[in-house]
């Protein structure tokens, strides 16, 4: 065990999950993931991960999962993040930690029994559709609408930037069910299956980073879903979204922490091996001091994330702490990768080096799932 991996938050179970995920990522992901940067993560890889139980960390035991908490998500996300392939990592995390929680946290027993086992086994891959072209940070202003019709609902509208949107078998869609109510009061969540008539992923979006991740624009035209596909209660959707955002933010900041830590390790390796002006770059104080400072910040960010996750696992409202994590780590990852590229020199600018890829991949860390400014406002509201 390397120094610094013992933690008051990490017991034997989490340590075992961390070690197992790390080994799997090193042996089965890192050697192959470069090829997925165009074309996406093969479904066979996701199937294999599902077979090893990777998708069931958070699902209740009676539905084939392990029933673990947010800390497990952070640790798992860190290890996936260490792959240095952000697109791969987010493909998995959107399923396990951004989308599935709508069902595990708010679905009825019947809905869980219907879908969860297949989600844990990887047969049903999921996505979450909240953002629209005109509504991102301001979730309450979404316009996609669902009106009752017969024993179900008809949904119309569109969604933007939806991760896994084009490959998911089931997308949780946020739609307005009460047009008269104040923004946040009239939103509901629906499970929409891929084959439903009128539902389509209209366009795959090209991006700065996360190249192996599928990001789609979704169109819903008179999509009819039965009542049984309404997740939880009508008009409670905004609350569900805000609740699940906590876990989402912890997971994607786990990813950012894993990516930052790995990038820093790769950079330290690089500067120790590279000589200039008669000695390794590592001997230049300005370089080693900067990297040491970044390590301290990553350690601080990790503790903050573990604590926020632990708090939320205690059933506490951890919104302020989670928002701090999102604001701090999202920015930190960008600082770390800036330095990593800088100290790799020209090599850091060349495609296919891990730091070049991560530099692009982490740019979204301070935007997606809650921009830094929005997060700091959440903190400020609670001070």
């Amino acid at each position, binding site marked *: 065990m390397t120094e610094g991996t013992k933690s008051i938050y990490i017991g034997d179970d989490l340590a075992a999950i961390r070690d*197992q995920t790390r*080994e799997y990522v090193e042996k089965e992901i890192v050697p192959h993931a470069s090829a997925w940067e165009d074309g996406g993560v093969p479904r066979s890889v996701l199937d294999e991960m599902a077979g*090893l*139980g990777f998708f069931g960390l958070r699902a209740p035991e009676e539905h084939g999962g392990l029933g673990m908490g947010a800390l497990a998500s952070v640790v798992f996300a860190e290890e996936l993040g260490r792959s240095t392939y952000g697109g791969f990592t987010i493909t998995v995390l959107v399923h396990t930690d951004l989308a599935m929680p709508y069902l595990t946290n708010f679905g009825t027993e019947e809905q869980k029994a219907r879908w969860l086992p297949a989600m844990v086994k990887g047969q049903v891959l999921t996505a979450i559709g909240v953002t629209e072209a005109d509504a991102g940070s301001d979730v309450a202003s979404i316009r996609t609408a669902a009106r009752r019709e017969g024993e179900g609902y008809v949904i119309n509208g569109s969604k933007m930037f939806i991760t896994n949107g084009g490959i998911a078998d089931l997308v949780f869609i946020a739609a307005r069910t009460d047009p008269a109510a104040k923004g946040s009061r009239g939103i509901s969540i629906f499970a929409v299956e891929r084959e439903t008539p009128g539902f389509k992923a209209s366009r795959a979006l090209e991006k700065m980073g996360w190249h192996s991740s599928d990001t789609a624009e979704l169109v819903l035209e008179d999509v009819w879903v039965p009542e049984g596909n309404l997740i939880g209660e009508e008009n409670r959707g905004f609350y569900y979204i805000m609740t699940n955002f906590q876990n989402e933010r912890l997971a994607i900041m786990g990813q950012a922490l894993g990516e930052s830590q790995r990038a820093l390790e790769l950079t330290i390796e690089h500067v120790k091996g590279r000589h200039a002006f008669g000695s390794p770059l590592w001997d230049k104080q300005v370089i080693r001091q900067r990297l040491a400072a970044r390590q301290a910040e990553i350690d601080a960010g990790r503790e903050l994330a573990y604590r926020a996750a632990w708090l939320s696992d205690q059933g506490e409202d951890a919104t302020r702490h989670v928002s701090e994590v999102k604001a701090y780590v999202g920015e930190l990852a960008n600082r770390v990768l800036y330095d990593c590229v800088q100290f790799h020199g020209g090599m850091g600018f060349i495609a296919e080096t891990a730091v070049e890829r991560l530099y692009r991949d982490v740019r979204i860390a301070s935007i997606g799932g809650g921009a830094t400014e929005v997060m700091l406002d959440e903190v400020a509201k609670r001070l």
Partner: protein
Amino acid sequence: MNVIVCVKQIPDPATPYRLEEGTNWLIRPEEQILDDTDRYGVEMGLQLVEPSGGTVTVVSMGPAGSGQGIRQALAMGADDAILIEDTSLRGSDALTTARVLAAAVGRREFGLVIAGTESTDGYSGVVPQMLAEILDVPALTYATKVEVDEGSVTIHRQTVAGYDVVTSSLPAVVSVTAGVVEPRYPTFKGIMDAKKKSIETLSMGDLGAERAPEQLVLSIVDAAERTAGRKIEDDGDAHEAIVALLAERKVI
């Protein structure tokens, strides 16, 4: 058929090994991992019992420490474990190890005992054969393939030229090479379930076993530093120099 797999917890090979002054015994940290070569044995055992039912028991001698290595084997799917831990066993050699393992194995009913060909920390490479001798059953060694049929076991025994097909009656001891089968990754559920599985801890007293007359490690010498290779500059006749060199080394 029940299978017993001998496994060893070893210090992580990624960290430098330290030897105790005077005895030259390996200093074993609290945290030890499952010897990578033993994963093949565990996997082989699991594959052999899966079709017919039966159990896989892992048996290990050495300080328990955190027990991480044993739990790794249980997480892969082994049913239970026997651990022989006794301070009097510190620094045991291959013969003592074989005696102790035999005494532990002899407490169970088994069709097959599987071991790796040699451990990654000790490299003596003789324990499986000694174990078979003490148990008074056949030893089939260096297996690259293992098949069990009604009362018999057949292996491919790795040789310099290829392999021999060796068959014997059961019970028997088989030592397997890395690559005999592809070890599975434990599932997350397997990892959690491993904690609930039984680990029977035995002392020398429990086993009624005795240490064999000991081997002593008189000295340890560092391997010679690798010297720089010879550089052959090509002035048009490098190929001749290379051919001469290869001939001198009897490669061609």
